[in-house]
């Protein structure tokens, strides 16, 4: 299995990625997927979210995460795409796809991939609010705990 890894500025075309993942395969029984979005909080309206990454290391870390998943579940393919740059509420940020002969493996691998991606790939988010203030998002303990379950 060769994972498909990409860091990109543009929106994620889920149908195109599904087609890429399943091209030429008939052994796939299920694809699990997670799509992350920029969420707006009415209590503190977000104007935009800027995503920064560490070129080179990011792709290497994403490949390593996918390789780890392939060692744990019988994957026929997986896709990790993460956006960088300036995003607005409602925009997609991240796509994880995991294809397997078996439904449970596809779903478990999907959860694993997004948990590890959140805690082990070098991306940083800065929020800009409607009132003009900015702040760097802090890492959440809950994310580390979710990732350490695996």
């Amino acid at each position, binding site marked *: 299995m060769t994972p498909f890894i990409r860091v990109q500025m543009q929106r994620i075309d889920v149908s195109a990625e599904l087609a890429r993942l399943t091209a030429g395969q008939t052994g796939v029984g299920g694809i699990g997927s997670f799509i*992350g979005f920029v969420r707006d909080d009415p209590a503190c309206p977000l104007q935009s979210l800027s*995503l*920064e*990454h*560490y070129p*080179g*290391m990011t792709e*290497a870390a994403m490949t390593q995460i996918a390789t780890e998943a392939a060692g744990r579940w019988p994957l026929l393919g997986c896709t990790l795409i*993460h956006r960088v740059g300036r995003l607005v509420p409602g925009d997609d*940020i*991240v796509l994880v796809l995991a294809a397997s002969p078996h439904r449970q493996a596809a779903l478990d691998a999907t959860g694993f991939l*997004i948990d590890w*991606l*959140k*805690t*082990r*790939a*070098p*991306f*940083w*988010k*800065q929020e800009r609010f409607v009132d003009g203030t900015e702040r*760097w*998002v*802090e*890492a959440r303990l809950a*994310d580390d705990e979710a990732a350490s379950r695996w």
Partner: protein
Amino acid sequence: MVRVLYFAWLRERMGCAEEQLEIPPGVATVGDLAAWLRARNAKGEAAFAELSTVRAAVNQVFALPPAPFADGDEVAFFPPVTGG
């Protein structure tokens, strides 16, 4: 020479994204380098004030403070990651 990179608020506080540095003798680990950068100037003091929130990588692999580095390496400092 060591290539040192900064990301997110470490980049902002250091005022640059990267620099090539001549490292003095005795600065041999990631932890040594952070302490040296902190003592070097006001920007370093601001960026490395809370060492518990600083993470690092050597040659694009996550590294803890005791990790060594050598001439020609790439060392990066950044906050805990917040992707996904």
